[in-house]
């Protein structure tokens, strides 16, 4: 990670952007600027139910980036409260369906299922991790926030966030790279597994 981080603009629009996403490799640091949509457990359930009814996602899905997060409430006059990532594996069951709708970037924390990794390959998508618990630091990189769907879900509502230089690391790339297994293998000292 001594290399300079790679700058990405979201959403992913056009072939050059799509190629930049496909070219990312596990372990690379990135800085994200542009638009992200927050969604976690309850919002994912509703989105997948909406798709099953033949409806559309509540945001432009082509090339979209989803951030698995449920921010804390904003103080008056502030953009947002704290906004770190939540555990991504709870969204594993829903992620392939969203990639099929055009979602190309997911940001969260923790490793993903085999089905999600396979979908990353199929759609040329990427899974990034932000530092779990670095929620105040990440919140400073969020320049605006507004609820775009499911306001009744409170912290779990879908928020549209505009971010600037939001730091993340590539965990799973579209070529099968997986930082969780590679990183741990490099530092493990046990003989038994």
């Amino acid at each position, binding site marked *: 990670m001594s290399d300079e981080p790679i700058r990405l603009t979201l959403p992913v629009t056009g072939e050059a952007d799509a190629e930049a996403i496909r070219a990312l490799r596990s372990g690379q640091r990135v800085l994200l600027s542009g638009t992200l949509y927050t969604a976690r457990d309850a919002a994912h359930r509703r989105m997948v139910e909406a798709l099953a009814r033949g409806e559309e996602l509540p945001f432009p899905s082509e090339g979209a980036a989803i951030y698995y997060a449920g921010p804390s409430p904003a103080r008056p006059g502030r953009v947002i409260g704290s906004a770190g990532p939540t555990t991504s594996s709870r969204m594993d069951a829903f992620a392939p369906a969203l990639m099929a709708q055009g979602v190309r970037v997911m940001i969260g924390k923790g490793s993903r299922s085999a089905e999600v990794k396979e979908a990353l390959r199929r759609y040329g998508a990427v899974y990034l991790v932000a530092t779990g618990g670095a929620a*105040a*630091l990440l919140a400073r990189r969020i320049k605006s926030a507004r609820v775009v769907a499911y306001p009744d879900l409170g*912290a779990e509502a879908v928020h549209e966030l505009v971010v600037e230089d939001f730091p993340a690391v590539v965990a799973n790339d579209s070529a099968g790279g997986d*930082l969780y297994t590679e990183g*741990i293998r490099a*530092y493990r000292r046990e003989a038994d597994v």
Partner: protein
Amino acid sequence: MREVTAAAVMAAAARLCVEANLRLGEDVLAALEEARKREESPTGREILAQLVENARIAWEDQVPVCQDTGYAVFFVELGQEVQLVGGTLEEAINAGVRRGYTEGYLRKSIVGDPLERMNTGDNTPAVIHVRSVPGDRLRLRFMAKGAGSENMSRLAMLKPSAGWAGVKEFVRQAVREAGSNPCPPLVLGVAVGGDFEQCALAAKEALLRKVGEPQPEPRVAGLERELLEAVNDLGLGPGGLGGRVTALAVHLALLPTHIAALPVGVAFACHAYRHGEAIL
């Protein structure tokens, strides 16, 4: 008897909720700084640097250190010569949680029914454990317990023949399986002995010792070091992305148990280990 008012308990509980969530304790910060020197993985060092910076920003911006401001968990030591006036202990603590989580702009993460899952809207009810102790003081110890780490808790009723080696392997396996979910570097509370629920409770309570505070019992201190080393050998590192520092500390509690039992409980605290205490 010494009188303590429910209003005073409420105010103290509210203050603990807000302060612990906005300001990472000196003990945890010092441990993170120390880990930064020890960590060999560049990604790991970068994450540790972010965490130290995050704590500074949280206090400066008056936002929570982590957005998951958790279950509000209280361990209460109630002096036998304390007379609580103006309300019950439980009501007073819950009123404090309600106020702290609302006025402190903390996230409300509690659902009233585990199956219907409607948010209670004010982070109550708190999880409250009360113990009666000698004296005329009331001690409130608080932790904000996020689900990422809480969901990784484990308890096993081992066979006594499994012994220390079995305990060690169980702890290692729990941390290995938890992976990045509980946001390492961790603080681990491990209890060995007791019965089922006493073991779980003691593991949780063991977390409350200040990180870096020496274990006074040399034999237990040695066992803690062994567990810490075993856990750090897993190589999970900061964020679970690989590295030397998987845990900052292991706090061990040994309890009397049954001739046919060897319970082991593992409580996980993430690096955003928010805790504090007040004495009334």
